[in-house]
Each structure stands twice: as structure tokens, then as C-alpha cells.
């Protein structure tokens, strides 16, 4: 049982993290060259109009007033309106539609990574130094070493161009017009009972999720293997076997849960990398998620969108780590102490 005190303590720790990220983003954007008022008004706008825009945005206020206002609005999840990308649209609304796109891809990728990474790592540990162990280790090494911008086009070339099994880009075939409920397209199509659309969305999602999943799987399987190898050599495992328990039961019942602790940590940290990797994956597969939004916002100097996106990333990452901590304390209750 996980204690409430532990969870509350961890939740409270999120406050300084998000405060730190908010301050960091505010500082970076104010140190970066460029005038947001000029960006909004356009390059050919008169000085008078630019001054007007500046007053409207509150950019004429002292910097500490701007900082205080930014923090106050960030607490209310109000990041203002977009300057450029979707002029006048609240950033909160833009993120509401873009975030599920990236989350869906990252979660499916992570799911694939866990689904294959844990059994492969287990197999490697149980059959140490066998052919299968060598093969999976080489595979894992390749998975970690190959960057997304290389594995992505390679998969597109093989599965979309040569074999024609999966589509190369987009989220769903153009003939389907799905009104978003949550923004998670596979979920939305299922809820609406449109199975043909669901199949199309799943086919479109497979390659990007696989690209993300390969990297994740490689890391998880490596961690699982080394962690399991260490657990197998523990005295309590030897005792269990000496008492006549079968080796499969010993491994699954006693070893697996203990070996899972470092793997859970890697999965948590990995999630942040997946969100970062989403920028590249979305670019390669032409998916309009939060990653491409961030890159576009930086390129055109849309500061509210940059601030909102970065804070959202940070919030997500810290929440996932909170989840990892809670799982951690479930697997090993001593950690709560």
C-alpha cells in the first residue's frame, strides 16, 4: 500500500520544478534577440503601430511586473494568445488539440518498447551467453545507436515504399473525417464505432510508434537483462531453488518484481526522451503534434506558444516521474522511508 504522505510530498515537489522551468523559459525568451511586438505587427508596420502593440501586450511594463504577471498566468494555465502560428487563438486551446497527438505516439511507442523490451531482456538473462542472448544484445546495441532521423526514413523506405504495408505519413487516411473527442485518434475512432477509421489510424501510427519503440525497447531490454542477472545470483533465489521450486517460478515469482525496480526508473526517464524524440519523429512522419508546433513557434518567435509548450512538456515529464516514484514505492515499500 502506498502512503498518502509519500504521494503528497512528491506532488509538492512538483511546484519548485515547474516554477524553475517557468522562470528558466521566461529568462531565455527575454534574453533571445527579437521584439515580439514587431513579430505581431509585421516587418512593414509603422513604429507607431508597433508601440501600440507593445502597450497592448504589456511589454512596456517593467520586467519584474512582466515576470510576476507571467507566473500568475502560468499558474492558471493561461499562456496568452498565439502571436503567429494561429494568430489570436489561446495557447491553451492550441495545446489541447496538439498534445494528444504527441502523447498518443509516445505512449504507443513506449508500450511497444515495454512489450518487447522486458521479455527480450528476461530471455537474455535466463539464457545468458546463448545465441539468443548475443542476438538480442546486438539488436539492443543497434537500437540504441541508430538515431530516429535515420531509422525513420529507413522504415518508411522498407515498409511504405518497398513492401507497401504501412502508410508513410499522416495520422489517418483522407477519406475519414473524424470529429475529435479527446484528440487521441485511435480512441476517438473506437468510441465512434468506426472500425475502418480505427484500422487506418492504427496503420498510420504503427511506423512512428515503432521508431520510438525501437529505441525504448533497446534500453529497456538492456536494463532488464543486467538487472535480472544480478537478481538471479542473489542468495534468496538460490534458496528458493534449493527448496525445490522450479526455476521458471523462482524467476517470475521472486526475481521479476525485484529486477523490475531499475527498469521502472529507465521507463520513466525514457518517457522524457520520447517526448523530445517526438519532435524528430513528427517531422519525419509529417505528423502535426506538439513537437513540430514547438519548432515552428521558435522559428517565427511565437513566445506564448513556446512558453506554453515547454511548460507542458515539463509538467508531463514531472508527472510521469511522480508515477515512476509511486510504482517504485509499490515494488519496494522501503523506498517510502
Amino acid at each position, binding site marked *: 500500500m502506498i502512503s498518502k504522505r509519500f504521494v503528497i510530498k512528491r506532488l509538492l515537489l512538483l511546484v519548485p520544478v515547474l516554477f524553475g522551468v517557468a522562470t528558466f523559459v521566461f529568462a531565455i525568451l527575454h*534574453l533571445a534577440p527579437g521584439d515580439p511586438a514587431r513579430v505581431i505587427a509585421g516587418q512593414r508596420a509603422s513604429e507607431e503601430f508597433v508601440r501600440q502593440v507593445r502597450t497592448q501586450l504589456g511589454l512596456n511594463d517593467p520586467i519584474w511586473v512582466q515576470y510576476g504577471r507571467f507566473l500568475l498566468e502560468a499558474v492558471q494555465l493561461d499562456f496568452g494568445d498565439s502571436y503567429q502560428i494561429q494568430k489570436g487563438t489561446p495557447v491553451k486551446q492550441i495545446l489541447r488539440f496538439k498534445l494528444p497527438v504527441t502523447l498518443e505516439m509516445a505512449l504507443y511507442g513506449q508500450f511497444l518498447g515495454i512489450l518487447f523490451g522486458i521479455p527480450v531482456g528476461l530471455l537474455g538473462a535466463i539464457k545468458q551467453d546463448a545465441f539468443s542472448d548475443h542476438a538480442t544484445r546486438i539488436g539492443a546495441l543497434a537500437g540504441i545507436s541508430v538515431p530516429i532521423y535515420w531509422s525513420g526514413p529507413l522504415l518508411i523506405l522498407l515498409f511504405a515504399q518497398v513492401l507497401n504495408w504501412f502508410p508513410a505519413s499522416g495520422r489517418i487516411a483522407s477519406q475519414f473525417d473524424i470529429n475529435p473527442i479527446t484528440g487521441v485518434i485511435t480512441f476517438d475512432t473506437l468510441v465512434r464505432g468506426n472500425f475502418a477509421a480505427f484500422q487506418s489510424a492504427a496503420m498510420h501510427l504503427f511506423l512512428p510508434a515503432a521508431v520510438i519503440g525501437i529505441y525504448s525497447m533497446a534500453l529497456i531490454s538492456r536494463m532488464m537483462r543486467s538487472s535480472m542477472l544480478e537478481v538471479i545470483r542473489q542468495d534468496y533465489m538460490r534458496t528458493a531453488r534449493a527448496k525445490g521450486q522450479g526455476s521458471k517460478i523462482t524467476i517470475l515469482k521472486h526475481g521479476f518484481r525485484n529486477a523490475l525496480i531499475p527498469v521502472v526508473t529507465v521507463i520513466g526517464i525514457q518517457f522524457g526522451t520520447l517526448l523530445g524524440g517526438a519532435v524528430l519523429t513528427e517531422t519525419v512522419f509529417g505528423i502535426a503534434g506538439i513537437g513540430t508546433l514547438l519548432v515552428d513557434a521558435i522559428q517565427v518567435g511565437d513566445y506564448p506558444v513556446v512558453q506554453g509548450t515547454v511548460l507542458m512538456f515539463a509538467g508531463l515529464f514531472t508527472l510521469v516521474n511522480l508515477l515512476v516514484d509511486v510504482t517504485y514505492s509499490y515494488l519496494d515499500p522501503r523506498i517510502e522511508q
Partner: protein
Amino acid sequence: MHSGESTDSGRPHSDRATGGDGTRDDSPTPRERVRQLGRALLLGAVLAGIAVPVVVLSGETVRFASEKVFAVGALVFGFSLLGWSGSVFAGRGMENFQRYIGGRSDWSEADSRRAMTVLGSVGVGGMMGASLATWVVGSVV
């Protein structure tokens, strides 16, 4: 070491806690900590107080100088906040990991937290100093 014996800094050890395993706790006393933070705050304020007029003298506007110097202070403050939170979140894990891999580093969660607090004070001092210097320079220029 006996109680009352001098340390390198000349202070007696009698006001320091002793760990349960008999080892001496090197953490500074609350008064020392406050003094350290005050010094860091002052350092940040002085640095920012110098930076604002220097930037103005180099030909930039007071607004520009104020924004940039304040932002640098905020950057330091934000970085230290993240460092502090990171130490609290993962510090114990890092310590255990070091022990696990047999590393001989002196890094510890408590030291890291303390260092980040000092750095954060420099940042806050910088932000305050920039605000104050802007007010002073603005009324002169």
C-alpha cells in the same frame, strides 16, 4: 575529535551535530547558512547593480539593460531551482548509484541542495539588484 576543539576555521565543534554512527556532521549551522545566503544575495545584487549602468553606458537603453540583466538573474535562479528540485528528487538515488558502482566521488544530495540554494540566492539578488539599479539609473538618465 573532542568537543570544543578548533576546526580549520577556528570555530569550536561543540555546536555541530554528531551522526548516529559517531561520524561528525559537517553541515553548517542555521546561522552560518543564513549568513551564506545573505552574502550570495548581496553578491547577486551588487553584480546586477554594476551590470545595469555598464550596459547603459555602452549605448543601450535603460529598458534593454534592465531586461537583459534581470533575465540573466532569472536564468540563474531558474537553473538553481531546477538543480535543487533535481537534487531532492533524485539525489538519494544518485548517492546509492555511486555507492553501487563503487565511485569515490564526494557528491552528496545535501551538498548539492545547499549549493543550489546559494546559487539561487545569487540569482534572486541579481533580479532584485537589476530592479533597483533600473530605478536608480532611470531616475538619473
